[in-house]
């Protein structure tokens, strides 16, 4: 529980009055949060004061003595700080300079980030040997230049001071040498057959690691290799087994799909290939004008996700209700062998036949996707639908599995637990993963683990599992180690290290080599030698192939070939009774991977912890998320602390009411409630694994929700930085507020009728009105366009900006005070009913107004305007009056109330971008349009005696965006991409009537709902 007594209680809002309010404006009103709708005091404070809690930073109170001390100290500092002499610095050059490094210029190396075994290709920026920034690899099929939050935040984990830094033996510091010796002895004991040896890994797609483990198993035939991670995708695998009789890998081509149905699948932000899929999907949302065609997305889901937010039609349904819908839809589109009666069910009669018709109209260019939470049958039905609709080979194709050995991971772990409990395990080697924390509760993995006679754990952290093992080997981060991994389509990416292991960690390859008696063989040789035996190229040709693959980051033409496969005709044979539970008291719980900390492996990453999660804008916690009606039924509201009971198990969690959540369902994200995550992650949120069981690991019925009477304080940024559209209540009478929505939306039909719908006549009338002659921007004139049609709300821009611009993490308490430092935020707007609102994302960063209100109020000229139209922030001039942020209508300025940047932890020095100042306390900061990148590109172009080319300057947010929603460039060049976007009729500015003339503009969202469906 948060210990902050000063923060205001999250109000329990009166739902009836909210519904009435929403009904008032014909459902046309945009809203951001329930607090806004109910106009709570807390919300008004956030609206009127940018930092409402700033007077309360001394929670313990302040006495006279302290004031005098502070006054004396500040007088002394004010007088003396200007008189510091520059300290004497040292320059320490190389003894022998490494090749290619030019001091002061970064180098980029290609590598891949494996997540749940699947690789996304990256280009990592190295500043004189320090990896500092991650970009996508434009040539890698899994990235195409885009990245996700996990890849962006991976550099922080690399430098995390809480990482395990040494080999441990029974809680004491040991050494790699001692470990190697111990494993040598263990080998002798396990010989000849390896009876009782168990190796537990996460999902392994790495061909070289798999070959090593197979080699070990060949030597020890009675040893077993098991795989488990919570994101193990068992349902998908079992669904394929159900449909095809064996596991396959499904590859989608969203760019070819005109109509997409997602059955509880958040394909845009999780699962293999999601970065690529976001690119493909959004490419079909790009518009040149009213004649452009759009794809159409239908989503059925319980918890609102990014995919649901961008859908044209979304139906909130409890997790268990998706199965009958899948069945009915399959039946409607003509999957053979199904009961056609189910189509008429009242729950979906109003829309499901229309969806089916839409799919059938787009045979061969539509797509049905099932989500990981859904049971195997839904996956199998999705396969059957795609086959029946002629999509296979067009919008979807199949390959052999990505995994070296595809297994049902829960069963695999069950196997291990049984062996442990049966006393059959002599030695257990856990390579990565944290099963003590994340194994299903019914496995009682912790106590079972202690029955293994020799326990070895390797991981980035000395975590819950590590502390129960005899040996803990500090693992090398993927930016420190050699390996390989398959992308979503099977392409083999090479993982090459950017830096020698900071803490002398070792990769899984090296540990397996030790177990196999090949101690001393280093990761590079293990990986390269494997490929030398596998590739047709020999000697010199192999060297060339290897060099090329390293340079590109992946092995060309290694994508798995398409296989021809047809689903069984009788997949749903056993499913005679497909109906929805009508029990009104039936409550289900849905577990999902957390959108920020995933399954808990990123729990100690401050960037991810502080990232406002999609839809809820929750930071630093997970929560029992439920709909307003469900909350009402249980007599709870946002901020109530409840007991969640499943059979004999229970856990506690705070409640958050989520607009658009399905009724009768509670979503609890995994990855929180870690006991040993590190200084950042320990103790955040609630542990879902206490109640999650192996029989129902994703959707489970029979949930009890009991009020405890306690309150829980969440750090939610949803209505922080809300832009005041109404003005002060007292002025509302005189100032006629016209509708100047910050998000502008039309349906495709409306857009075709009125291409200028995004331009408001009231705003157009005042445009350019000024008493003074305008400044003439010659040469470059930087600007940005953000296409709301393409933004999928993935937050990659937020973390990319944080990484590029050395933005500090402030912690939960400071976030509650409205002091999160992100320069770019993704605002979420809702429209329509509480039960199923439309959701809109809008990334907001500094608008770089030509008539910037912040500049005129700065008493010291710390924020000024450049001749190229940048609104500049000069930190060393700033004295912290905060007048500028007071005067910013967009609320994009961030103030360092405290020394948020960590200046003390040496390991974090390596993380920083050397081209951006690390800000100190008392300084205002904000988006600079990545001026360091602009300057670097300008210098390069000047040296080559040419103009900066269009697309040469890519801001960090733009580079990270997998959806290509953000475009930056020179608006004075009519041929630049940004100028062309701004010339579109959908282009509009925020608060245009203030005549701030923002350089950041937005392209209005166009929805493409099915005209046959009335909602």
């Amino acid at each position: 529980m948060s210990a902050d007594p000063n923060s205001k209680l999250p109000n329990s809002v009166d739902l009836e009055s909210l519904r009435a309010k929403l009904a008032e404006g014909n459902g046309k009103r945009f809203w951001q949060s329930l607090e806004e709708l109910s106009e709570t005091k807390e919300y008004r404070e956030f609206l009127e004061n940018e930092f409402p809690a700033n007077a309360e930073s001394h929670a313990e109170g302040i006495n006279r003595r302290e004031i005098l001390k502070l006054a004396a100290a500040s007088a002394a500092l004010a007088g003396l700080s200007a008189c510091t002499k520059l300290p004497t610095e040292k320059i320490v050059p190389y003894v022998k300079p490494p090749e290619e490094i030019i001091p002061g210029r970064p180098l980029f190396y290609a590598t891949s980030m494996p997540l749940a075994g699947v690789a996304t290709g990256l280009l990592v920026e190295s500043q004189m040997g320090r990896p500092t920034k991650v970009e996508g690899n434009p040539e890698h099929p899994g990235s195409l230049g885009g990245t996700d939050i996990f890849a962006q935040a991976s550099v922080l984990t690399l430098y995390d001071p809480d990482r395990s830094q040494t080999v441990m033996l029974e809680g004491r510091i040991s050494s790699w040498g001692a470990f190697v010796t111990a494993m040598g002895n263990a080998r002798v004991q396990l010989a000849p057959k390896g009876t009782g040896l168990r190796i537990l890994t996460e999902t392994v797609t790495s061909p070289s690691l798999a070959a090593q483990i197979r080699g070990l198993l060949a030597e020890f035939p009675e040893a077993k290799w098991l795989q488990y991670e919570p994101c193990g995708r068992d349902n998908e695998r079992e669904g394929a087994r159900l449909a095809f009789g064996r596991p396959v890998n499904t590859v989608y081509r969203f760019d070819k799909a005109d109509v997409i149905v997602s059955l509880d699948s958040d394909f845009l932000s999780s699962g293999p290939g999601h970065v690529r899929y976001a690119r493909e999907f959004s490419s079909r949302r790009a518009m040149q004008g009213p004649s452009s065609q759009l794809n159409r997305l239908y989503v059925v889901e319980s918890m609102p996700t990014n995919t649901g937010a961008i859908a044209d039609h979304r139906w909130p349904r409890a997790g268990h209700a998706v199965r009958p819908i899948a069945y009915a839809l399959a039946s409607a589109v003509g999957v053979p062998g199904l009961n056609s009666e189910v189509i008429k069910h009242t729950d979906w009669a109003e829309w499901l036949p229309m969806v089916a018709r839409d799919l059938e109209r787009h045979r061969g260019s539509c797509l049905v996707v099932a989500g990981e939470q859904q049971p195997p049958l839904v996956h199998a039905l999705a396969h059957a639908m795609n086959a029946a609709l002629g999509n296979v080979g067009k919008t979807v194709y199949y390959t052999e599995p990505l995994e070296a050995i595809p297994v049902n991971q829960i069963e695999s772990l069950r196997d291990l637990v049984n062996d442990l409990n049966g006393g059959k395990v002599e030695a257990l080697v856990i390579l990565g993963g944290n099963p003590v924390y994340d194994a299903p509760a019914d496995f009682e993995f912790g106590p079972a683990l202690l029955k293994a006679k020799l326990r070895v754990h390797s991981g980035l952290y000395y975590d819950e599992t590590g502390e129960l093992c005899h040996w803990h080997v500090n693992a090398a981060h993927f930016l420190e180690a050699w390996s390989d991994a398959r992308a979503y389509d099977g392409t083999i990416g090479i993982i090459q290290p950017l830096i020698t292991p900071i803490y002398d960690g070792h990769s899984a390859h090296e540990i397996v080599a030790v177990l196999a008696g090949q101690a001393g063989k280093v990761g590079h040789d293990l990986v390269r030698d494997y490929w030398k035996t596998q590739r047709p190229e020999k000697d010199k040709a192999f060297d060339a192939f290897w060099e090329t693959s390293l340079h590109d980051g992946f092995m060309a033409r290694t994508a798995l070939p398409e296989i021809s496969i047809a689903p069984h005709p009788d997949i749903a044979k056993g499913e005679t009774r497909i109906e929805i539970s009508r029990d009104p008291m039936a409550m289900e719980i849905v577990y999902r991977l957390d959108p920020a900390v995933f399954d808990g492996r990123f729990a100690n990453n401050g960037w991810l912890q502080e990232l406002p999660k999609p839809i809820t804008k929750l930071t630093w916690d997970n929560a029992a998320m439920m709909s307003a009606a469900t909350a009402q039924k249980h007599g709870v509201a946002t901020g109530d602390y409840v007991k969640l009971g499943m059979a004999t198990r229970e856990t506690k969690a705070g409640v958050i009411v989520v607009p658009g959540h399905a009724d009768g369902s509670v979503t609890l994200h995994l990855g929180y409630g870690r006991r040993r995550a590190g200084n950042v992650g320990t103790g955040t949120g609630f542990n879902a694994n206490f109640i999650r069981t192996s029989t129902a690991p994703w959707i489970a019925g029979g949930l009890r929700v009991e009020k405890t009477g306690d309150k829980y304080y969440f750090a939610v940024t949803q209505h922080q930085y809300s832009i005041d559209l109404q003005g002060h209540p007292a002025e509302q009478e005189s100032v006629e507020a016209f509708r100047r929505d910050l998000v502008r939306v039309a349906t495709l039909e409306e857009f075709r009728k009125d291409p200028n719908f995004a331009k408001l006549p009231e705003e157009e009338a005042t445009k350019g009105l000024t008493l003074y002659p305008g400044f003439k921007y010659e040469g470059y004139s930087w600007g940005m366009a953000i296409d709301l049609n393409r933004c999928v709300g993935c937050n990659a821009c937020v973390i990319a900006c944080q990484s590029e611009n050395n933005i500090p993490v402030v912690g939960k308490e400071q976030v509650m005070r409205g002091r999160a430092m992100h320069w770019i935020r993704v605002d979420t707007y809702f429209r329509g009913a509480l039960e199923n609102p439309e959701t809109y994302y809008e990334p907001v960063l500094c608008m770089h107004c030509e008539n910037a209100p912040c500049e005129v109020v700065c008493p010291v000229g710390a924020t000024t305007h450049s001749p190229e139209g940048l609104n500049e922030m000069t930190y060393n001039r700033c004295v912290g009056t905060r007048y500028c942020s007071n005067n910013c209508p967009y609320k994009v300025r961030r103030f360092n109330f405290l020394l948020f940047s960590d200046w003390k932890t040496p390991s974090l020095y390596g993380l920083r971008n050397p081209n951006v100042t690390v800000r100190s306390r008392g300084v205002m900061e904000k988006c600079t349009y990545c001026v360091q990148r602009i300057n670097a590109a300008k210098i390069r172009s000047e040296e080559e005696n040419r103009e900066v080319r269009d697309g040469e300057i890519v801001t960090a947010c733009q580079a990270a965006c997998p959806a290509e929603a953000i475009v930056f460039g020179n608006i004075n060049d009519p041929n630049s991409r940004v100028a062309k976007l701004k010339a579109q009729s959908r282009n509009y500015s925020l608060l245009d009537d203030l005549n701030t003339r923002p350089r950041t503009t937005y392209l209005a969202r166009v929805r493409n709902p099915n005209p046959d469906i009335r909602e």
Partner: protein
Amino acid sequence: MAQIFHHSTNLISRLSIYGSVFILGLLGYALYEIGMSPYYTNVNVAREQPVPFSHKHHVGELGLDCRYCHTSVENSSFAGVPPTQTCMTCHSQIWTNAAMLEPVRASYRDDKSISWTRVNALPDFVYFDHSIHVNKGVGCTTCHGAVAEMPLTWRAQTLYMSWCLDCHRAPEKYVRPRSEVFNPVYTAPANQIQLGMKLVEEYRIQRLTNCSTCHR
């Protein structure tokens, strides 16, 4: 009641009023002088180095080009301080036993960097780029002074912002032909302004004075 102060104190109070103006002025002047003094700016203060490297000898007498050691000056923000290897290209052949050069040999032998004292330093919030200045015709000696005459290196200019702006506002006063940038004994011609104006045009030199040119 008697006056507390004798009326002669009027003079003192009057003097102190004028005096305070004078004293404040003096204080301001003193602060300015301190700020501009070598004590504070390190201008003309020869810095002690682990090896008493003489630019005078290497540049002035032997005629080494600046770029022989400062290799990245033309294509990076950082001009580069030579690695030990660069020293050893010559000093593995000549003066191989000189006691003065022992730290260089030790560095090469033990693979340990030499820790030089920085002479020209800017605050961390200033982002200066060598390559663009060199490419636009700003000579090395314009900022670094007559390096060819420095037995031990010292800072030749204050490197204050006002000093930067002096050139950024009127580059024609300082630019020279690109061919002369690395000339350590270059002297500006009598028609510098005229030549400068021509070069400003020819090299497309901009008068960048907005903050984000250097601060970000």
